[in-house]
Structure formats: C-alpha cells, structure tokens
C-alpha cells in the first residue's frame, strides 16, 4: 500500500499503543536549549531517572544569549544562571553541548541542520514550537512541552496521537522579489492560524522542488503559525547535496546506505492524503502582516482590511483588536507605515542565503535616519562564513548593526527588545502582542528583503521598487 512520508516515518518509530489509544513514539533526535530543558532535568532528578540515550540529545543555547556581549558573566544574572544550568545538566548527563566557545552555537533550528544532525526519515523533538523547521529534510519534527522533554530524556519517547496529513502543492515560479517567507505567510493567510490543527503539512509541488534547503526550512519553520505542529518536504537530491560532508552526516559506505534509506521514506507516488490544497505560486505577492497573528497579512500593494470587510462577528472583533493594538486604520495602505526598528535574523530567516540576498541589494543604500536596524546571524557558523565573505562590512557600511548569534529580537529573553510602542519590520515568525519585549511593541512580519527595504526607506515599502528588481 502506498504511504506518505509521514506515515512511513511514524510506522518506523511507533513503539506500541498506550492504554489511552495514543502511540508511544520513538524520538530519534532530541534537541534541547536553555529555556525549556532545566525544569525537565529537575524532574528527572526528582524522580531519580537518568538520560536513556544521551548520544541522541544535542544542546545549544540561543534564547537568552546577549548578541552584543561576548564575555561572561553576562550583565543579566538570570541569563548567566540559565546558561550555567544547561552546562551543568549536559556535563552531568553526557549530552553534547554546542556551547558558545565551540564555534557551533546558535539558534537550535539552525544548528541541527547545519551540523548534519537533522536527517531524512527521522523523528526529531525539541522543546520549541518551531521544531517543524527540521521537516525541510523529510524528518517528522515536533515541538514539545517541558514534561515531554522530560519524557524524551528519560525514555526517548513521547505519547502522541497520530496526525492527519494535508498536502500543500505550490506550483509555478515565484515572481521576482517574492521569497519563501512570502510563500508561508501566504499559506497561513489562506488557511488560517488554526487551519493546520491536527495536521502535518506536506509541502510539495515544483516551487518546493526548486527551493534550496534554506528556503524549505523557512517555510517549514512557520508551520506552527498555521496551527500545524509538523511540516515537511520530501527528501531529494537537494537534501542529500546539502547534508553531504556535514559534521554529523554519515560518510563512506554508510553515506550511500543512508541516502538509499532516506529516499525510501519519500511519499509514494499517488498515496492518499487527508486533504490537498493547491496554490499557484504566481499569485503570491511580497506579504506583510498588519495585525497580531501571522495570518493577518496582506500583499504589499493591498490595503489593511476594515472591520466592515469581515464576514463574522468574531473576525470583526479580531480585526478591531489588531487595528487598535497596531494603531492602524482599517482600509489604509500597508505601504508607507513608518518603522522604528528593522530586524533581520531568527530561525525563520537568519541563514547565510538570507544575508547574501540582503547584502546584494543593500550595498550602496543607507539605513534611514531614526531607524535602528540590526542583523543577527542564526549561528556562529553562519556568522563566520558571512564575515569571511565580507557581508558584515556591507551591512555595517549601510548602517546596520551586525551582531553575534542568537534569537535576539525574535522574542524578549535577551537585551534586544522593542521599547514602548515602536513599530518593527521583522524577518521573524511571530507578531503577537508584546512578542518583541515591550508590552505595547508592534511587529510586522515580512521577508528579509522587505525588512531591508523598510530599513533604508524608513517605512514599509515594496522592495522591488526600492531595489529596482527586474520583472
């Protein structure tokens, strides 16, 4: 019987059925970080349990690391305490830790793929909702809570209900100036923030076939923003090419065997899906969010919706709440909103290709007066390569701050924060109220190029016009 990748990976990792009908699922690869793991290690100690498969857990530190402070102790004692706790837990339990002095530290969802730890046909879990990022490799990757981090540490398994699978086909060539980020913002706008509840999203179609691994990661990363806990792309030559020669990738004969095995996990031709959605890539515009959920987005040439546009009362209420918080007028153009801060980074768009693309266009431009613009590499590896290519100089020359690796302004657990009701053009993944650190701070999600365009003009702009894209 033909099966989807999701079913094949699930079946290969299903240990047994539990009394309540859930499946005990083996988690092959466990990624941990400083925010959601200390309590789990604490629970383990309380129950006198040990880490069962320490060689399958990998740690890094990302959320709390300051990106503008190189030496410890950090000025924030809470942050210092958290990194020390992780160090201690990893050392005591023989867990590999990509610490800040290894040259490999970074945002967990950037580190896993870049080290070759993220592999096709595997199950991956991390106490972080953007774990679906790893699905770009044809892995089934789940964001989990801290009690489940405990479960994985103690048993290498979690209790889970099987998901349904929705295939999302995107076909055609993206227009110039339209990026992977726009694809996922478009999908969420179309299917809604809870459209994916109960589903794994299989992203397919020639748009995805032609995507690089980094583009696939950008899309899979934001699956959770559409309510889907898991998102993946079937592994292909692009996947294998990316993984070849990475530190944790198999080598020699084992490599050939692994590739053959990885290929066998891809969804079978003609297998059944619980739902199928088809999207025409040419309809996707550079997309910008205007509200307080990632589904509240519009194309750059569109206007922000009005309350009257909404068909139901609950949608009217959501629009009203978002407009009030964002201080925007319904029906006004998204273009031209004056920004205070521009942020390029995060596990959605903090990879080398993001920076190369931005550098190509901002060269010769200057960040607008009064705008703070920061660029934060997703990992030390990304930072090093970017610096070797001289990208940092281009950014600094253009008036951006070039920082050290971390989550930075994606969320407010380190010194990078919005102040008051600042409006931020951000390449990250969440525009929730207060997400960027100030309870009244305002976030607009968009692609890195669109952030760069906003940075140099001082307002939300069409990057295609600002940077003269040829169509």
């Amino acid at each position: 019987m033909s099966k989807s990748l999701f079913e094949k990976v699930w079946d290969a990792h299903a240990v047994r059925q539990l009394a309540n009908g859930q499946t005990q699922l083996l988690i092959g690869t466990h990624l941990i970080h400083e925010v959601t793991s200390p309590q789990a290690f604490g629970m383990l100690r309380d129950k006198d349990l040990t880490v069962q498969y320490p060689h399958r857990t990998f740690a890094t530190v990302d959320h709390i690391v300051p990106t503008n402070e190189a030496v410890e102790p950090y000025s924030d004692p809470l942050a210092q305490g958290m990194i020390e706790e992780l160090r201690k837990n990893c050392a005591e339990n023989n867990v590999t830790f990509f610490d800040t002095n290894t040259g490999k530290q970074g945002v967990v969802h950037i580190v896993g793929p870049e080290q070759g730890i993220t592999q096709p046909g595997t199950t991956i879990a991390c106490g972080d909702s953007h774990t679906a990022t790893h699905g770009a490799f044809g892995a089934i990757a789940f964001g989990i809570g801290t009690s489940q981090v405990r479960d994985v540490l103690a048993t290498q398994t979690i209790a889970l209900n099987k998901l349904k699978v929705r295939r999302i086909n995107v076909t055609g060539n993206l227009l110039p100036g339209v990026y992977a980020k726009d694809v996922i913002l478009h999908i969420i706008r179309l299917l809604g923030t809870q459209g994916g509840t109960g589903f794994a999203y299989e992203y397919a179609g020639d748009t995805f076939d032609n995507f690089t691994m980094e583009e696939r990661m950008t899309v899979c990363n934001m699956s959770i923003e559409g309510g889907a806990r898991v998102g993946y792309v079937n592994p292909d030559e692009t996947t294998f090419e990316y993984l070849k020669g990475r530190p944790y990738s198999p080598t020699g004969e084992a490599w050939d065997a692994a590739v053959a095995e990885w290929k066998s996990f891809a969804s079978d031709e003609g297998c059944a899906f619980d739902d199928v959605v088809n999207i025409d890539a040419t309809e996707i515009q550079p997309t910008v969010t205007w509200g307080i959920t990632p589904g509240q987005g519009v194309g750059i040439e569109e206007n922000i919706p009005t309350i009257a546009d909404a068909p139901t009362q609950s949608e009217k209420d959501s629009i009203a709440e978002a407009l009030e918080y964002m201080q925007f007028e319904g029906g006004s153009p998204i273009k031209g909103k004056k920004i205070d801060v521009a942020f390029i980074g995060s596990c959605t768009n903090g990879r080398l290709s993001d920076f190369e693309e931005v550098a190509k266009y901002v060269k010769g431009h200057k960040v607008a007066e009064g705008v703070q613009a920061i660029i934060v590499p997703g990992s030390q590896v990304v930072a090093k390569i970017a610096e070797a290519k001289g990208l940092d100089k281009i950014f600094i020359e253009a008036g951006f701050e070039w920082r050290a690796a971390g989550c930075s302004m994606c969320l407010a657990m380190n010194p990078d924060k919005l102040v008051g009701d600042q409006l931020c053009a951000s390449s990250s993944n969440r525009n929730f109220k207060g997400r960027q650190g100030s309870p009244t701070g305002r976030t607009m999600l968009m692609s890195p190029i669109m952030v760069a365009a906003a940075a140099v003009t001082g307002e939300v702009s069409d990057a295609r016009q600002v940077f003269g894209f040829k169509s």
Partner: protein
Amino acid sequence: MPATPIKQVSGKGVFVPGDDIDTDRIIPARFMKCITFDGLGEYLFHDVRKTESGEDKKHNLNDPRFAQASILVSGNNFGCGSSREHAPQSILRAGYNAVIAGSFAEIFFGNSINLGVVCVIASDADRKLISAAIEANPEVELTIDVENHKISFGDQSVPCEIKPGARDSLLSGNYDPLAELLEGAGDVAATAGKLSYMQA
C-alpha cells in the same frame, strides 16, 4: 502509578475575552528566565493585567468579583504560539485548573492535559451563556463533567467536547504518561535497534 482520576472539576469562572490568545500573552517570554516553574503563577497574563508602570488595568482578571475563580473561559484557538509549558504551568500555579474555550492549539492542549489541567471545548453560543451567567453572578459554581461531556452552572447545562484520548487519560488518572512510557523500555530498545541512525 496513576494519579487521582479527574472525572469533573468545579469552581467559579472568569471570562477572558478574545480569540487567538497566544502563549506569549499567557506568560510573556521575559518572565521565562527561570530554571524552575515555581513562581510563574504571579506573571500569568501579566501584560493583559498590568500597565507598563505596573498598575492594574481594568480587566476581569483583576476584578475582585472574580478573584476566587479557578476556571478560565475564553475564545477560539486558545494557547496558540509557542510550545512553552510555562503557559499551562502559570495557569495552574495561579490557581486555575480548567479552561473552557472554542478550540485549543495542539501543543498547549497536550501540555495542559499532561499536567491535569482540564481543557474542554464549548460552542460560541454556549460560552456566551456561561460568561453571561458568571457576569450576572460571579459566585455561580461551574462544573465540568469530563465523563459526561457537560458543563453545568446554576440550573443550566451545556455540552462540551474533549478529545477521547485526553478524556481517557483524565478519567483513568494516567494523564502524566511517564510511568507508562518507562514500562515500554524493552520495546523502545527493539524499535531503536532497527534504525541505523540510533546506533551509538
């Protein structure tokens, strides 16, 4: 060893209006700089409750009439966003042990059930009835009957839904799966043995 079964929860309610209440709102990230969950209750819905200078805003969660509440009533897609267990932990530690919503985000739902925080779904119209009843009389006792899919309050009662697996776990007291997962260690080793990438 199962915990005490949770067949029903009773308590006073408080209405927290809005759809898409995300986990950043339930517990803002800046309060997650901690290595234990103790003390998180204090920051539940912090930015919804407090102004930037730390004064109380006008909100049901600050209203002394609802100070005794132990059941939250809210909108659709409750708990969306991050996987942080800090969210249900702060709900629990602030003295709430159940949430009635239009729908729940998946990870939040799973995290909550693991902790024994009862999450049930009720329709828009039924939640309106419940919140109107609370508003009219904050002392009204809500009872969520997990076994019979029912929420009663005063002399009214409305249906509610909960995923069958979660319901079973609550009713049997097995909502924390760790003990059962540990029992499967032999089977886990067998499954892991068949996967090349699991070998040390």
